[in-house]
């Protein structure tokens, strides 16, 4: 009886391996080089545009810190608007990390699940799902910042 079970398991394993091989034939290899080039140019473009806006605001007499904050807010809001009208996914499919790594990706990661789960209500649907992806980022980032602050407190004394 147990011998049969073992045989069954082995057959299953072999089948799984064969299937993996079979699937691999049809999965396209990611185009590493062209993906990287696209990410480089789009990401660079986003950063350059941000710098241009910041310089524009500073020329209007804004403090450097306020100008940087204003640019961040503009980037976040425009990325969320693009997500809302459905263009961000198309852009992200082309640019990959070029729009996911800048702050625009963070903004997009908040809106898209919130939109997706709107049917579950305004509180537990959209309200909660706003943080499915942004939550981990905020939790890890803030935790690390507090630890760094405490370490600096100890070192400076």
């Amino acid at each position: 009886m147990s011998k049969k079970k073992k045989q069954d398991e082995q057959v299953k394993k072999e089948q799984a391996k064969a299937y993996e091989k079979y699937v691999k034939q049809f999965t396209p290899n990611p185009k590493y080089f062209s993906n990287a080039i696209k990410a480089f140019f789009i990401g660079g473009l986003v950063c350059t545009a941000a710098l241009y806006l910041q310089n524009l605001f500073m020329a209007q007499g804004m403090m450097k810190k306020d100008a940087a904050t204003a640019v961040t807010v503009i980037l976040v809001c425009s990325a969320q608007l693009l997500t809302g009208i459905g263009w961000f996914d198309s852009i992200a499919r082309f640019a990959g990390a070029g729009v996911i790594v800048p702050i625009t990706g963070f903004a997009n990661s908040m809106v898209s699940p919130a939109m997706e789960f709107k049917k579950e209500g305004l509180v537990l649907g959209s309200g909660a799902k706003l943080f499915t992806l942004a939550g981990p980022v905020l939790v890890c980032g803030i935790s690390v910042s507090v630890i760094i602050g405490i370490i600096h407190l100890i070192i400076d004394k």
Partner: protein
Amino acid sequence: MDYLWAFIIGGLICVIGQLLMDFTKLTPPRILVIFVVAGAILTGLGLYQPIVDFAKSGATVPLPGFGYLLAKGAMDAVKIDGFMGALVGGLKETAAGITAAIVFGYIIALIFSPKPLR
């Protein structure tokens, strides 16, 4: 010249993200977390500030810049307020961005409905 360096450094940070996505099986949320934490730790070690001085928006707009702001806020506040500064500083520095993302994101999510990928 500033624009050129912002373009190059910003682009390079994005390429690192793209390579992480293609070569490892890390999902985008994990990459976001890695970038923010890496930015914060590099700032804590004093390695990220020179990049920011050099590349400006090229270093602050990508996600490591978010970690940079968090860590910088905590480090600056600690000098003035001591222990409470560590708790207050990070979020204080990033409050505008996070609040805008939450409020505007919520409004957008209420107005628009998801569309099929074109």
